[in-house]
Structures are given as C-alpha cells and as structure tokens.
C-alpha cells in the first residue's frame, strides 16, 4: 500500500479530495435518497457480523432462561406476553374506532375500514450512535414488511420502517431528529407536525398559533394526513406549552406514549394501508 501522507501539501490535497467526495456522497444519500441499494447490499453483507456480535446478549438471555429451570413455562410466558401486547394494541385502536364510529353514525355515512394486520416483531439492536434513533427488528421482506409501514407498541406509535432486508428491517423512531409526523390533538382536533428532537423522551410541535387550544396532558394522535399512518394512533402526551410574549407561535413539547428507551416487542402494521 502507498503511504497515506508523504508530504504535507500532498496530504492537504488528499484531505480536500476525500472531504469533497465524502460531502458529495452525503448529499446524494440524504437529499436525493439515491443510495438505498448500496445501503441494502452492505447491510446484507453485515448480517453475519451482526449475528455474531449479538451472540453474547442472546447467550446471556438463554442462560438466564435456563437458570429459571422451567423452559416450558418461559415459552408459555413469552407467548402470552406477545398475545397481551397485541391485544393491548388492538384495544387502543378499538377505543379510537368506537369514537370514530359514533361520529360517522352521526353523519349517517358509515364506511367500512380496511382490516389491520399486525405482525409481531422483536428489537434486535438499537443504533449505538446517540444521535440516530433507529432500531433493527427481526422481521423483514420475507415476513411481508415493506418501507413506510407504521410500527407500534402496546401503548402507541413507535416509528416507521425505513429500510427492509430479507430477514430484518430498520425502523426510524419518531423521536429521530429527521422524522416528522402529521398529528392532531385528540381533544380539539388541532392539526400539527410532531418533530423528532433527537431525544427519546421528547417530541415538539412547532408553529402552532398563539391562540391554539392546547394544554398539558392533551393526547396527541396521528391525523392520517400524508396517507402513511392511520388516523387515531396514540403518539404522545403534551408535557409543556411554551408561549413567548410577542411571538405569534407557541411551542409544544410532548412525551411519546410508547416508552421508546425500554422497547422490546413491537407490532408492524402490514395491512395494505400500513405501507406506502
């Protein structure tokens, strides 16, 4: 191999070339979204490495189960907790559906909703970069997952699928600073955009007019605008309403309903309307 920097001036030139090339790749990747296939290929190649690196935690989990000494009991418990998670999610949706149903009945125009199909998934790993809120789940293309499908927990929305591989998928959590979500306040139906802040316990609603009717404790849910998420999925609770004197807009801070830092089991909405 050739030496990296033989002379300072040559080194500076090489640095400039490398930096320019790097920035160009970043722009192409982020602004034009043109490197999906590269990411897909590399992630697929990295799959064996990820499996090996997950071995200690998987082994530790297995040893823990073994120490309990009742493997059947553990399996049964896992199965029941999965069912419980699914049922809790469905119950949350049923509440919203009931409210929507009564509203529709009032308007005398009842419309049949698309059936939801939830796929259970488990988080394999979270990104070790503190500024990237991405999770890899153990369901992929072969299980029917596709880009854009909403990901839920028993409590509410978690994020959406952004990359799909044969056996796994990447989920962008809604608190990632690049994520934006059309939402509405359940009580008043005020619409806004929930923006990720890069903190797992915080979302922000910006540019709401100063006169908006919103208070601490209000539930925020998906509005269904944009066509990616079904309306009525719980998103967050309002924790702070910041009104600055003289400013025409109010800033609203909310905490996600789903405990994003403690997630393990998830549901991917693989129904037709769930994806793009």
């Amino acid at each position, binding site marked *: 191999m050739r030496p*990296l920097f033989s002379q*300072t001036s040559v080194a500076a030139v090489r640095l400039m070339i490398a930096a320019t090339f790097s920035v160009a*790749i*970043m722009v192409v990747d982020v602004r034009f979204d043109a490197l999906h296939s590269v990411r897909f290929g590399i992630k697929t190649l990295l799959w064996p490495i990820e499996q090996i*690196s*997950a071995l200690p935690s998987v082994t530790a989990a297995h040893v823990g189960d073994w120490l309990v000494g009742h493997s059947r009991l553990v399996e049964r418990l896992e199965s029941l907790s999965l069912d419980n998670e699914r049922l809790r999610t469905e119950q949350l949706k049923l509440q919203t559906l009931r409210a929507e149903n009564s509203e529709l009945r009032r308007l005398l125009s009842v419309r049949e909703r698309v059936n939801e199909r939830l796929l259970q998934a488990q988080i394999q790993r979270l990104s*070790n970069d*503190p500024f990237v809120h*991405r999770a890899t789940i153990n369901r992929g293309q072969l299980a029917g997952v596709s880009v854009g499908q909403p990901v839920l927990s028993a409590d509410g929305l978690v994020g959406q699928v952004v990359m799909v591989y044969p056996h796994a998928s990447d989920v962008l959590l809604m608190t990632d600073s690049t994520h934006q979500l059309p939402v509405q306040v359940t009580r008043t139906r005020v619409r806004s955009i929930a923006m990720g802040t890069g903190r797992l316990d915080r979302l922000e609603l910006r540019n709401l007019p100063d006169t908006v009717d919103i208070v601490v404790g209000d539930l925020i849910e998906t509005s269904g605008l944009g066509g990616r998420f079904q309306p009525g999925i719980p998103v967050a609770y309002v924790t702070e309403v910041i009104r600055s004197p003289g400013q025409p807009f109010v800033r609203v801070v909310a905490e996600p309903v789903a405990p994003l830092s403690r997630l393990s089991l998830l549901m991917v909405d693989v129904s037709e309307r769930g994806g793009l």
Partner: protein
Amino acid sequence: MTFLVTWLLTMLLITVPFPSAAALLLPHWGLLFVVWWALMRNYRLSMTLLMVASIPMDVAYGTALGLHALIFALLAYLLTLLGPRVRQVNWLRQSVVVFLVLLLAAAASYWGRTLTGQNPEFLLLVLQAFFTALAWTPVRFVFEWLAHLTGEPEVRTS
C-alpha cells in the same frame, strides 16, 4: 490482513447491541480504529481503503453515507502529521492528544450531521470524544496484539 482483522473487530464492537442509554457512554470504536491506523501504522494505510472501510460503519450506525469518511479523512490527516511525536510520549499524554484531535473530529461530525438534517448536541459529541480517548490505551494494546498475531511489524513506542 491486519487491516481486515482490526476492521472486523471494530465492526463487531459497533454492532454489539447495547441499551439506548449506554450509547452516550460508549466510545466510538470506528474512530479508535482510525486513530490506531493513522497514529501507529500510517505508512500502511491508504485514503481509499479508509474511505471504503468507513461506509459499512455509516450503515451500521445508521448515519448518512459519507459522514464517517469525512471524519476519518480529517482524523487521519491530523494524526499522521502528529504521529512521529505522539508515538514517543507516554499513554496518558497520548490519550490527551487523541482527545484534542477527537474534538476537531467532533466538530466535523457536528457539521456533517447538521448538513444531513440531524440535530446533534455538541456537548454529547465532546462527551463521546472523552470516552473514546479514555478507551484509546486498552484498544491500542488489543490492536497491537492483533497486529502481532497477524505478523504486522511492530513500531517502536514509549
């Protein structure tokens, strides 16, 4: 061979699942990989190889492709210039120099992340640089051991 082995070890460390809260306290293994190569074996490293090695790290971390290439290029440039002097000082001073260089890399990282739409807190990047510098000495010894195993010639240090 040594490059491949150290890169594989780095990728393994990057992809080990940790709780989200631990991410703030983890050293950046990719930066340590570059620090070791640029500081201890810069005569064996090429910029092209470094950039190719950085792309899978972008994928593993979930950052924009090219972000790590930018940081690594800057880091390699600075450390290669400082290399001969830094190699001769003791481990503590080395860690201090590594920390200072990592601060500049953190600035590049901050700029790159902002460019790609992220909203990073600079203090957290400084914290990450601190933990990375703290891990430098043990990682250096592990990499030296790997280099020894793979038949890489040793470089005289203090």
